[in-house]
């Protein structure tokens, strides 16, 4: 079978190519796929290159719904800079930790979601913000909660012929941040990561905190038990969070991690690391409110 490379110039062209070549790898920035190709771990038969699809490289704010929708091909470099940086600060912080400037000029949320590595830096942010993933195929569109989209280690809910088009995130009134541990400060894949979002004015009820962890389970983990505990333990609108509450929150977050030993770190260290990250994020949230 002879492979093809389709360099799509529009979303319609990309959807048509994805339908005609369901075996093809959808290539956004290439920063995941080409690593595997270069070391011969993967030999794609065909590719649909999405780099030139302008529809995937746009983002827009819906003021009425208080959301931002970010195209699957928008590079991380755009997320770490204004105006997206102020709209979704945790995403900006996560984007800034992705690889090098060269990687951030190419890598995107579409690629992060398509690869669906538990260490993908954008994914804990999408989880903590309850993102909606928008997919499209020739058959129509499908909107999937991030929690249902991420299935496991490098497994997701995308169906053959579908293209990840964009994600929608809420514009949250409250503090949000991302923190990550690796072997060094720059150019590193997460050994453990965490995103905390404090929503001071949710659609219903009192202020809530949402926390999601990366690289400590088969996919990103939302710590709903720690979130529920925190809601009862402190008033998130009251400002500073006590040291005891922050520490206990970190401990409880660590209990919800499901880390493993691998070439990047140990399970024990990862559980400890996410506890410390969650504690620090909550302290930062308290200090900022």
């Amino acid at each position, binding site marked *: 079978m002879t*492979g093809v*490379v389709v*360099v799509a*110039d529009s979303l319609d062209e990309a959807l048509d190519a994805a339908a005609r070549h369901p075996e093809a790898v959808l*290539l956004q*920035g*290439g*920063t995941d*796929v*080409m*690593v595997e*190709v*270069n*070391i011969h771990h993967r*030999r*794609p*038969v*065909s*590719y649909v*290159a999405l*780099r*030139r699809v302008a529809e995937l490289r746009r983002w827009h704010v819906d003021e009425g719904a208080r959301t931002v929708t970010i195209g699957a091909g928008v*590079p991380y*470099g755009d997320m770490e800079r204004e105006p997206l940086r102020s709209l979704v600060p945790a995403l900006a912080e996560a984007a800034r930790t992705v*690889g*090098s*400037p*060269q*990687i951030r*000029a*190419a890598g995107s949320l579409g690629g992060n979601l398509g690869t669906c590595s538990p260490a993908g830096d954008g994914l804990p942010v999408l989880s903590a913000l309850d993102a909606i993933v928008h997919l499209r195929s020739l058959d129509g569109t499908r909107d999937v909660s991030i929690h249902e989209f991420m299935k496991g280690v490098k497994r997701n809910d995308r169906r053959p012929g579908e293209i990840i088009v964009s994600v929608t995130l809420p514009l949250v009134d409250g503090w949000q941040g991302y923190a990550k541990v690796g072997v060094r400060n*720059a*150019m590193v894949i997460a050994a453990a990561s965490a995103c905390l979002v404090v929503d001071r004015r949710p659609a219903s009820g009192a202020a809530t905190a949402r926390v999601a962890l990366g690289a400590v389970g088969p996919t990103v983990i939302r710590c709903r038990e720690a979130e529920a505990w925190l809601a009862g333990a402190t008033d998130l609108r009251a400002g500073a969070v006590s040291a005891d509450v922050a520490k206990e929150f970190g401990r409880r977050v660590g209990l919800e991690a499901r880390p493993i030993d691998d070439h990047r770190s140990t399970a024990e260290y990862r559980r400890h690391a996410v506890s410390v990250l969650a504690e620090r994020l909550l302290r930062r949230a308290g200090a900022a409110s």
Partner: protein
Amino acid sequence: MTYSLRINGEDRAVQDATISESLLFVLRERLGLPGTKGACEQGECGSCTVVMDGEAVCSCLVLAAGAVGADIRTVESISPPGEYNAVQEAFITEGGVQCGFCTPGLVVAVQHLLDRTHDPSDLEIKEAISGNICRCTGYGRVFAAVRAARDARRAGAS
């Protein structure tokens, strides 16, 4: 497969290529442009940095056949053969070149920074070269070279 890439302002035919070749491989092995270096082939070291559609990227992670239609600039476009531009001169005079393997990638990254940032701060310089690994210099002389290039331009502009 056969396709055409736009490299340094010229359309270059790539013939009899296999499907998954990286832009780095095609530049060096098919188009006779060995200035771009290959080391890690995982996007870690930056020695293969080129500018594609105005962004500095790792050519090892660009699917060459997927780069059709892109404007690609390699280190060979920085200055004519036998001549050096201000960034290259600064690397030489400041001792920013030792073994030289990382130098083309660094020169492309630094030129890209100076092209889009008029007067970069020290932090901006450090961030701009954070994706280019040098195992010889310890970065001190590289950093001095970038500052020298920046300061020379600042002096020339005033």
